[in-house]
């Protein structure tokens, strides 16, 4: 428990205020590096115990958020260690940035359940609570693991696997040559490895960029709203975004055809993607939009297909129905406020999906929709929603570590170090990437050596 850990400790709700918590012996040091008081002169390390301070969190020269910082010194804290709580005001995105900033300045991402574990091990919890503590640790970890896998985009998962495979092969090659120098030679190898490492560094760099754009992780359920023009997609989106449902963020780079937004309700996060209407068209610009919609639908976790009950099914609807064939879909029988032209039973039959009558205009059926989504995805896991964001921070941390380790390999090669030194840092990189995939190292190396290289005797 030498490290100083940090995590977002409130559920990631759009409530506006969220807390980033830090615990460990360097907490005061870390906060002093990122906190700036209004006058800019206060040394927060010298602040009296259990006091609250108004100010700002800075990442280098950039102001991240206006905050309240609570200083709590050991031992009278939840974990028994020096603890700092940062109340962020700028919503979810700001909270994430604040977390990233403290991580950059010496804290590490807390393991699932780690605050509770520390509290217990430091004698801050009653011994009779041990059972509960163990449950928290185990279930949080299980969820985090599952979550980590689910959240990772397929393409990112594959990219990391490939990088990892390449690294393992190189270690195995070096190690085989060390174990059996008379069979396997390392002549000319450092130059070759240098190229390979450069290439791997580039790949990880790219992943890191993706991660900081927030595009590596699927935060929330990727939900796509499909429907022919004028079916009522925009109205539905507006209803979902309305009143007590806030826009959490809008991702930069949205195209004119596709709008991405985060929606929260009752602890759920939906990433809404509204597409241009699907329409068979010769118009080039529109055609691109349609193609994109199709691609996005392919990647979606959930499709909300808005059908217009006031007009009959046409070729656009047929197109959409073919796209949703293997996807989790809720069909919305929209415009119940108008005279029906389309039979709901008919719609159920051709789509083979659950159909829900709504009126986006009159805002009826929306509660039922929320309930249906909940049932589909979140049975039991809602309270862990904050883990999603922590997972993303953990992934970034692990990627950065792998990046640093590979840079060390590069330096060892440039410095003309003997080959056996390369595998030390290659192995660290391999381990770091394994954390993202939830894979331990175990006997990987020995297995790789034996399966890839023919040893002597």
């Amino acid at each position, binding site marked *: 428990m030498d490290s100083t850990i940090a995590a977002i400790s409130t559920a990631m709700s759009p409530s506006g205020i969220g807390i980033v918590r830090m615990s460990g012996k360097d907490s005061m040091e870390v906060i002093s590096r990122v906190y700036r008081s209004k006058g800019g002169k206060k040394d927060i390390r010298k602040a009296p115990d259990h006091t609250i301070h108004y100010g700002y969190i800075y990442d280098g020269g950039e102001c991240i958020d206006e905050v309240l910082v609570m200083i709590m010194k050991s031992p009278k804290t939840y974990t028994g260690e020096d603890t700092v709580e940062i109340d962020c005001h700028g919503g979810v995105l700001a909270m994430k940035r604040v977390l990233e900033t403290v991580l950059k300045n010496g804290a590490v991402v807390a*393991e*699932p*359940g*780690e605050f509770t*574990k520390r509290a*217990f*091990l430091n004698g801050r919890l009653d*011994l009779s609570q*041990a*059972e509960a*503590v*163990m*449950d928290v*640790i*185990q279930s949080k*970890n*299980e969820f985090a693991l599952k979550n980590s896998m689910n959240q990772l985009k397929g393409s990112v998962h594959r990219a990391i696997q490939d990088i990892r495979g390449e690294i393992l092969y190189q*270690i195995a090659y070096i*190690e085989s040559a*060390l*174990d*059996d*120098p*008379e*069979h396997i030679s*390392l002549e000319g190898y450092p130059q070759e490895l240098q190229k390979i490492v450069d290439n791997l560094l580039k790949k990880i760099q790219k992943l890191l960029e993706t991660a900081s754009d927030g595009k590596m992780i699927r935060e929330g359920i990727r939900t796509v709203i499909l429907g022919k023009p004028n079916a009522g997609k925009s109205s539905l989106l507006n209803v979902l975004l309305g009143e007590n449902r806030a826009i959490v963020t809008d991702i930069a780079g949205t195209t004119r055809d596709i709008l991405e937004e985060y929606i929260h309700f009752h602890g759920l996060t939906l990433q809404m993607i509204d597409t241009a209407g699907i329409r068979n068209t010769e118009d080039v610009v529109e055609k691109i939009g349609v193609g994109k919609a199709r691609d996005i639908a392919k990647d979606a976790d959930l499709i909300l297909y808005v059908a217009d009950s006031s007009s009959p099914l046409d070729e656009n609807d047929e197109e959409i129905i073919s796209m949703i064939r293997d996807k989790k879909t809720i069909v919305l029988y929209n415009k119940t406020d108008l005279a029906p032209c389309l039979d709901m039973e008919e719609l159920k039959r051709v789509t083979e999906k659950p159909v829900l009558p709504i009126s986006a205009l009159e805002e009826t059926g929306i509660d039922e929709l929320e309930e249906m989504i909940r049932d589909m995805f979140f049975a039991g896991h809602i309270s862990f929603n904050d883990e999603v964001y922590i997972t993303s921070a953990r992934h970034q941390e692990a990627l950065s570590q792998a990046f640093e380790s590979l840079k060390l390999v590069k330096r060892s090669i440039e*410095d*003309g*170090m*003997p*080959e*056996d*030194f390369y*595998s*030390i840092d290659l192995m660290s990189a391999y381990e770091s990437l394994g954390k993202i995939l939830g894979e*331990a190292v*175990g*006997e990987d*190396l*020995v297995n790789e*050596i*034996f*399966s890839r290289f*023919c*040893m*002597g*005797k």
Partner: protein
Amino acid sequence: MKNLTVTCDLVVVGAGHAGCEAALAGARLGLSTVMFTVSVESIALMPCNPNIGGSSKGHLVRELDALGGEMGKNIDKTFLQSKMLNRSKGPAVHSLRAQADKQAYSNAMRKTLEETENLTIRQGEVTGLLVENGEIRGVKTHSGAVYYCRAVVLCTGTYLKARCIYGDVSTYTGPNGLQAANYLTDSLKELGIEMFRFKTGTPARIAGNTIDYTKMEEQFGDERVVPFSFSTDPESVQIPQKSCWLTYTNETTHDIIRKNLDRSPLFSGAIEGTGPRYCPSIEDKVVRFADKNRHQVFIEPEGLYTNEMYVGGMSSSLPEDVQEEMYHSVSGLENAKIVKNAYAIEYDCINARQLNPTLEFKKIKGLFSAGQFNGSSGYEEAAAQGLIAGINAAMRVKGRDMLVLDRSEAYIGVLIDDLVTKENREPYRMMTSRAEYRLLLRQDNADLRLRKKGYEVGLVDEETYRKVLEKEALIQKEIRRVEHTNIGSSQVLDELLETYGSTPLKSGISLAELIRRPELSYEILEPADPGRPVLPWDVKEQVNINIKYDGYIRRQKKQVEQFRKLEARRIPENLDYEKVGSLRIEARQKLELFRPVSIGQASRISGVTPADISVLLVYLEQYGK
């Protein structure tokens, strides 16, 4: 009927490399020791390759020597050729390997055993163990004799229910046609010990005078030989050396093998034991590495007493006629006469997770085991375990703390931890990649790492230990001097830098910084370092390594600190894992099975996750109160 009864302190079953070390350690530590062997002619026999050491195995021998074992001294007396492998690589992977004169090796070890006080060599087969209330009481022999004792070390090697196989011929013997031990397994099973069946193999031996060496590349030993033992006078090992020879298999060889695969007992299923992937038979190599059109073959002398040559790289269990054809297809072996066929051997061994890291059985106090019986392979792996088992048997009898080396202290520690913590499904071989702190566990500093332990145990004498302390002091003093010596540009230095292609100095720099330049070393910089004291070569070597790789060494030391914290968290012997709530079922089962001694060991068991470890820590916190 009256049977012979004998009372002693320690019985060692087997006189191979593990048995010899165990018996010597026990006797030297004052235990009246009886060592059983099925044949006294087979003491310290090398039934497979004629060499000692090699990558990472050389480390084991150096460590064993530092602790007071015999193997290093014995090979120094009897080697035919010696090489430091990986010399061009980092110091952590330098490794000694010597070709042995097998007969001389065996004779020298036998002489040492015979001259050791408290040690009795006894030919005979041990057939059963006497255990009372979970404690060892003695052993029974085939003749009915009973040896009462306080500790037993089992070092049965490949002899338990041994079966040798080639083609469809199989004989129920140990290696080299020696008598197998067919009864002990059943006695062990009755005691509830879980057994495995493993397999290994050896190539043919060929008459040296029928080999055409002109078609092979000659392989020489090092010009200046480094002894294995820290106690051996380096001058005494500068002797004329014998050569080995390198040749290759070819497509014809591979065709012959492929054509006859159906006659291999490995592929027909006649062999049930699990073989090692790291020393595959030639037929295995041809099948698994089909894209390689040739494999190396090393022809190595078996000793000066014979012209038999070992055909390294071509172990096999193909039928006799195929072997004949196969060997003859190799360049230089066209007319070679086979003296002994290649064969595979199957034998019983234990699932080593039944052992504590002390090599004592968890369930039977006073019963220890070592070597191939524990599922390892290799002479060096066996000897290292034999030494530890012998030492700990003595500690048990004397009521003293047992010796456990951890993964950060020695390859021996890695070896034993792997054996007792991992699910080994094949004979275990030491490899340098298995040692995560290998920069610290070098063969050159084995004495600095382990002499103290050997001394505390009682196998290393006072004077030897004192010498290591002096060496250590000299090293530290010189490192400090070098770190604090600043040097500036001078004619001597500038010339030196130019000679070695090193950038000229712009300003003053510490001597240590210069040594860290890849193209320079402590030795090279001597002319530019007038304040340098006269130091023995091994001190200079340590100074150079410690300064040159300082950054890496410090990083590993930091990791070791972390590692030790987890090792230090002991788990109570009688912990009931059923009572640890929230452990996943898989973790619970594994922990129950392995019963790790520490949190560190628990974390290395496959199937136990970091979350399980956290849960366990929380439980232990509560348990301790």
